[in-house]
Every structure is written in C-alpha cells, then in structure tokens.
C-alpha cells in the first residue's frame, strides 16, 4: 500500500530548475536547429549545410580549427606535464611564486595575450622594430597559425600544470618507492608509473585544452589575419548577416556543436579505459636534484612561466607609456589611464561588476541546488537535469550567444540588448563547471550529517542551508573565484549579445583595440588584470587549502 506524500521542497526546486533549462537551453537549441534548416524562401532546406561542405573557404576553417586545437593540446600537454613533474618531484626555489604566476597566466583575459604579442612581435611591434634596427634580425611572422598556437598555448599550459599537480598530489609516495625498489630508474618511472597514474587527469586536461582552443575566438580574430578558424567564421557570418534571420550562422553553430560533442564523446570513451581511484596517505616527496639538473629545471620552469607572463607584463608596462593619437611616444605618463577612466567609469566598469556579480550569485546558487539534487535526490527528473547541466560544456561560447539572440529577439520574451540576456548567457556557460565542482564537494560530505540535523529538529531545507552549505563553503568559494574571473574576462558570448548599454570591460578593451587606441586599450586591460589578480590573491589569502577548482 503506497501512500501519496505531499510534494516536498526539493521536488518543487527540481521542477523550477527543469523549467529554467527548458526555457533558456532547450528552447534556444531547438530554435538554433530550426533556423539552420530554413532556406531563404522560408521552406525546409539544407542549403547552408551544403554550402558549408562544398566550399573550401568554409569547411577549410574547420580543418584550421582542428590544426590549431591539436597543436595547442600537444604543446600544452608537453610543457605542462614537464613543468608539473619538475615542480612536484624536485626541490626548487620560489615554488609559491611559480604556482601563483601559473594560476595568474591561466586566468588572464583571453585576447590580451594576442593583443600583446602583436604589440611585441607584430609587424609594427616593439621587439620586431628593436631587433631589426639593432641587429638586422627578422622574426618569423607572428600572424596566422604560429601566432594563434603560441598565444593559446601560453594561456593553456598552466592549466595542464595545475591539473597534473593535483593528480600528482594524489599519488602515494610508496608507489614511487615500490617502483624504485623493483629496479625502475627515475627516468623510466616517469613513463611506466607516474604518467599512467596521471592518465585520467591528463585526458581530462587534454579535453579542456582542446575545447578551449577550439572555441577560442578572440585570439584568432586578432592575430589570425588570413588564417580563419571556425569560431571566427561563425562570428563573421553572424555580423555579416545584417537581416534579422541568422540562418547560416545557425547552421554553422549546429556543425560546431556536433564537432565538440564528438570530441567530448571520444574523450569520455578514452577516460573510461583509464579510470581508477587513488588516495595518497603520504604525498610524493621532493628530491634534491644534482647541481646541473637543478639549474636546468629552474631554467625550464622560470622560462615557461616567464614567457606566459610576458604579454601581461608588457601590456601593463605599455599602459604607462606616453601615447598620443594611438601612437606611443618616448617617456611615461598616466594619460592613458585618465582617458580610459573617462571612457569606462560610466558604463563598462559598473556593468562588469553588476553583470558579473549577478551572474556569479546565480551560478553559485543554482550549482549548489543542482549538485544537491543530483547527488542526494537521484531520480528520473534529476537525472535529466544532470544531463542537461552538462550540455553547455560542449557548446562554444559564440554559439550560446547566437542561440539566445535567435530565441529572444522577438516573440513573447524580448531580451536582446538587455543585461538580463548577458547574465543568462554567462550562467549557461559557467554553470557546468561550478556544478561539477559542487558535486565533487557534496559527494565528500556524508549524508548522515544532514540526517543528524533533521533528527535534531531541522526541516529539510534548513538542514541543507545550516549544515550542508556551510560545509561546502570552502570548496564553493574556490569554484566561485574561478567563476568570477572567467565571467569578467568572457568575450566570445558577450561580443554577440552586447549593446551600448551593456558594454563590459572586456568589450571596452576589444573596441579600443579595434579602433587602434592602444594606450587606452592597454590601460583598461591592465585594470582588468589588476581586478583578476586582486580577486585571486584575496582568495588565496583567505582560503584554507589554497586549492583552485576549475
């Protein structure tokens, strides 16, 4: 005999969240798909797909994107894994500094790298001019494929480093000792013990790097010149289609989603073959290397981090140079800042904070609720939510933007041009990451803690907010800091959705770069860098375990 129970709080939350996903994810994706198969005459047609796959100008961009992504992934893995290996297995000077700098590099706004590299090594770049006039050396061309790969790699290998460092900390020292006891040399140990043990993490990092490189849109836009990648094509088509129907852009978006979904599935399949769990009682001990080895290791680690930091340092330096009419003059001044503040104070700075904080608050709240539903209330509805929550992970940023525009620029809900649509886009993009980290945290908290609270007289919701949430705080905070930084440095979705009223700092930098106001662009970029650095340092000062969750 089954008794009907009244709906409990969590069931109501389930349905509300499902409704939100239906409105802001399923509906836009459906609209995207529908628009992609509607011809100019309003009838069903696959003409856009046909056009894409028959013209090399179009499908070539897909190959270009793959080339870039593969090259970036390979380079980032090699650089990052070596860096992590040296960092975790050997004694080194200035480890805390290296670690902090690595985090800073990985967090820098995506297109500042490209912009800065052009300023340094581009055609009129500072170093290009300096070296050619002093020594007559001509640098290879920074534009195109090489430039894109250098810039994106510089930003993504620190991510690999942070991931692998986390994995290495989970390897028990006794495993290494056992291997050497069985006659395995330190060189061989790296390949037969350490690398295989890190494999799940390496695959996860590879996927993340690949996806980011594939979807990165600002870097190739700035530094790509004739080398057009797929996201740039989407953006150009979107901007180029002046009418209100974005059918070709929609078709391109659908292709983009199919490609990233395929990559995601391949990675998932690969990961299942390497899954095991580890928990280190004794973390790996660091060894003092021989003198020569030590010098080489120090040189390598500081060199890679130095190169990755270079663009940001350069931009900051440039922001203090005298600049007149977009041309840098000898000497220093704060003119760029004066001009920059005049431009951003009114809109983009407050916008960045209001839109950023609103998105962040909602992301954290939704992530906690969804994580709870997924971990503690596993049922059919919540499994659907779980799957839906991971969908945005594979949708490139520009595609999210286009889908939202298509859905909400007419009909009962018009949101285009509002801050709301920016917030929605940022939430959709950031939520999967925050949910994953919240799920991981929640899985570590035994259910009985909550039951204890209930047995002591708490209601379900109160038990959740007075006991479970405080216990999750530390983990949530680290996730929130990363979310905050990615939100305020986001460009690829915002560039499609923004209007004059909702311009943010990243967009202000972008417009000034495009307009050739290098002084102002550098100054705003430096301000943004300062905000991200300050957020990160503040977090590291107050966080207990200093771990960063991505």
């Amino acid at each position, binding site marked *: 005999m089954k008794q009907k129970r009244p709906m409990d709080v969590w069931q109501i939350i389930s349905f509300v969240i499902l409704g939100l996903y239906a409105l802001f994810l399923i509906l836009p994706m459906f609209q995207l798909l529908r628009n992609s198969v509607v011809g100019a005459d309003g009838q069903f047609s696959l003409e856009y797909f046909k056009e894409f796959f028959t013209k090399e100008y179009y499908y070539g961009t897909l190959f270009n994107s793959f080339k870039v992504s593969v090259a970036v992934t390979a380079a980032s893995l090699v650089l990052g894994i070596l860096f992590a290996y040296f960092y975790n297995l050997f004694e080194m000077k200035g480890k805390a500094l290296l670690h902090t700098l690595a985090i800073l590099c990985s967090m820098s706004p995506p297109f500042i790298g490209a912009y800065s590299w052009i300023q340094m090594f581009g055609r009129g770049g500072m170093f290009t001019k300096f070296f050619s006039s002093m020594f007559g050396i001509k640098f290879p061309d920074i534009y195109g494929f090489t430039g894109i790969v250098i810039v994106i790699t510089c930003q993504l290998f620190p991510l690999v480093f942070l991931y692998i460092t986390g994995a290495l900390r989970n390897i028990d020292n006794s495993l290494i000792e056992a291997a050497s006891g069985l006659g395995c040399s330190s060189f061989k140990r790296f390949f037969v013990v350490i690398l295989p043990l890190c494999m799940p993490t390496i695959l996860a990092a590879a996927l993340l790097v690949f996806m980011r490189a594939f979807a990165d849109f600002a870097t190739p836009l700035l530094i790509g010149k004739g080398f057009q990648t797929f996201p740039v094509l989407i953006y150009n088509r979107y901007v180029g289609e002046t009418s209100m129907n974005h059918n070709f852009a929609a078709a391109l978006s659908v292709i983009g989603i199919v490609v990233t979904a395929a990559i995601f599935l391949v990675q998932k399949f690969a990961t299942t073959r390497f899954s095991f769990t580890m928990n280190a009682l004794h973390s790996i001990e660091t060894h003092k290397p021989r003198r020569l080895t030590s010098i080489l290791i120090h040189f390598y680690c500081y060199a890679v981090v130095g190169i990755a930091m270079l663009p940001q340092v350069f931009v900051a330096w440039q922001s203090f140079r005298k600049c007149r009419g977009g041309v840098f003059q000898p000497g220093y001044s704060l003119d760029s800042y004066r001009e920059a503040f005049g431009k951003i104070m009114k809109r983009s700075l407050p916008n960045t904070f209001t839109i950023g904080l609103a998105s962040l608050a909602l992301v954290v709240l939704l992530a906690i609720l969804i994580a709870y539903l997924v971990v503690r209330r596993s049922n059919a509805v919540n499994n659907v939510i779980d799957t839906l929550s991971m969908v945005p992970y594979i949708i490139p940023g520009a595609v999210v933007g286009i889908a939202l525009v298509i859905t909400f620029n007419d009909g009962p809900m018009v949101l285009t041009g509002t801050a709301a649509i920016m917030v929605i886009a940022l939430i959709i993009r950031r939520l999967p990451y925050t949910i994953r980290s919240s799920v991981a945290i929640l899985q570590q908290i035994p259910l009985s803690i909550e039951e204890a609270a209930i047995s002591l007289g708490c209601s379900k919701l109160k038990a959740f907010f007075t006991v479970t949430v405080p216990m999750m*705080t530390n983990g949530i905070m680290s996730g929130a800091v990363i979310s905050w930084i990615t939100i305020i440095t986001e460009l690829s979705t915002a560039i499609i959705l923004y209007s004059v009223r909702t311009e943010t700092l990243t967009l202000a930098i972008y417009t000034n770069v495009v307009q050739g106001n290098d002084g102002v662009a550098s100054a705003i970029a430096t301000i943004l860098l300062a905000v991200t650095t300050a957020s990160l340092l503040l977090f590291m000062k107050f966080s207990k375990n200093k771990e960063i969750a991505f």
Partner: protein
Amino acid sequence: MSVNIRIDHARKCYGSSVIIKDLSVHIREGEFFTLLGPSGCGKTTLLRMIAGFNSIEGGDFYFNDTRINDIDPSKRRIGMVFQNYAIFPHLSVADNVMFGLKNQPVRLPKAQMKAQAEKFMQLMHIDEYADRMPERLSGGQQQRVALARALVIQPDVLLMDEPLSNLDAKLRVEMRETIREIQRSVGITTVYVTHDQEEAMAVSDRIAVMNLGEIQQIGAPKAIYQRPANLFVASFIGRTNLLPGEIRIVDGQAELTVSGGYRMTMNNLLASEMHDQKVVVSVRPEEFILDTDGEGVRATVDSSTFLGLNMHYFLTLETGEHVQVIQEAELDSVLPEGSSVVLRMKQHKLNIFCEDGSRNLVRGVINDAAACQEG
C-alpha cells in the same frame, strides 16, 4: 518522556527487491533493544525506517499510540547516533550539542539552553572540550559529542546505528559500558544496531536476531545464547559445533545418537517432537567434556591454543567432523597433538534442531518474536 515502539507488518523494498517482507516487533518503554544480524540483514534499514530516513512501503509504526509513518523525521522526537558520528565539522563541540536545542519547536531561553548543554557535556565528560572544533577530537571523544548531542534534546527514543564500529577494540569496550550506563540513568527507550554479538550481549535488555529481513528470535541475551530458536541463531550467537544426529523413540524415551554412535537419553524434548527423526545437534565448545578414556565419541587432537584462562583444542572426530573444544586450562596436562581422546557432552545444555534447522526441539526456548507476529 519515554515511549514504547510498536511495529506491525513493516515492509521495505527498493524497486523490485524486497528487503523486509513482513516484520513485526514490539519494543518496551525504557528498554535497551538491539537489532543484531549479519550485514545486509535489514537491521539498519529497519532503524532508518523508525527514524524516518527510509520510506515505509507497508505496515504501521507506532510510538505509544501515535502512528509515525507520515510524521517528518524532524518531528518524531528521536535522538540519533550515526556510525560515522556525523558531527558538524564547522561547529564547535558546544555548538554541536546546542544545535538540536536551537531547532526545537519550542525554544528554551538562551541561558537555559546553555545550562542544558553544559549538563549533558558533563555527563559525557566532554565539557573541557566545549570550545574545540571537532577535527581536533579523537574518535571516542567525537562519539561522546554525538551521544550528548542526541540526548540533550530529551528525545522519546534513542536510535544508534553501529555507533562503536569505528573505534578500536579497547575503546569499544569502554564506550559500550558508558552507553549502557547513560541509557540506564536517562531511562530512554533505545534501539541499537550492531553486527557484533558480544557487544549486543553486553549492552542489551533484549536482542532481536535478524537474518534476510526477518526476525529469527527476540529475547534476553541469556535466553538467546542458551536456547536459540533455530540453527541460524545458534551459529550466529557465539561459537558452536554442529553434528549430525538422530532421535529415536524407545519405550517412550527419546534416545539421541550423535556422530556415529554415542548415545544419550534426552528428557527435555518438546512433546510435539517426540517422534523418530534426523536432527542437527549444536554443541558449544564449552559443552564438551574431554576425557582420555571411557564412553563417548572418539577423536584425535589436531592442535591446541593456550589462551590463559582456557585451552582451545581442535579435534577431528572418528567420523571425520572437525570440532572445537574449550577446557579450563590446568597446570599440568596439555594434550599433545595426535593423541586419542574421548568426548562426552553436557547433555542438559545441548540444543537439538530439526534437520532443516528451522526449529529447536528442546523445551525452554523463549522467543518474543512469535507473540509480535500474531499481534
């Protein structure tokens, strides 16, 4: 205020798999009642149904005359102690103990809450750690906090789910005495879950032995140990040797033949079982009498272990069965390996089960489970 607990025809299933089919049990007011059984027997499931953390698929649960099936766990007035203690790690010891007081429907004035918490912390000897964070407490101390936290709200029922299984052996013995003492002094109806039969015997007023979602026997520790209701209870509680045997009625007397030929006349069989049948005889190691000659079952010594108070002998009977025998250790004689001995049995202590093990044929079995099932 303490209550009695009545569970009638409880049913629990997850999807299509039935964990508890039809279980009834009555727990008396103020009693220390233990659910004992191997892992997977449904004991924790039943406890969590009483607590309200598991749904109830059928049957009625009563605290006194109040049906609690549809009452939210937070309103059942229970105190619960968890296997992993479930101490709130972000709250100090004092705040952990106060937590329940702050969440009661009728809140006491602050000063009174403090006094109440203080009283129970003293009772559990944790008042000196009041301001500590839980991470700086040992397992035993955390257990005391958990107990104080559960009791301070003066619940009607105390529920404990394997509370000692994470402690080391010595602390386990110490804590179980503490728990028993506190339970006596507070006089609260307590339901305790464990898989450790020694622990169950040490603390309980009555024990319910469970297997495969069914209650096998309910009774006082002594009753269960000495007169187990069936073969499962006999072998789960304490150690025992099981030997094949046969009952034959000769001249109105029951004659038991054990393992190949040793014969005894039994005069404590149930009247309803007075007919010829094959049986299983349960002989606990201490119920053997070891001799070097005379009448009995012939056996050879395989090995022996000296355990201070007792000698444990491992023997092989001439019929091939292996048995364990416990004798009080004497100063002189230890039987060497390979020596031949003769075994006799303390007849009045033996338990005799029907061939499938479902019934004890001996008089004097006390099983409260039968009464519950009818009620």
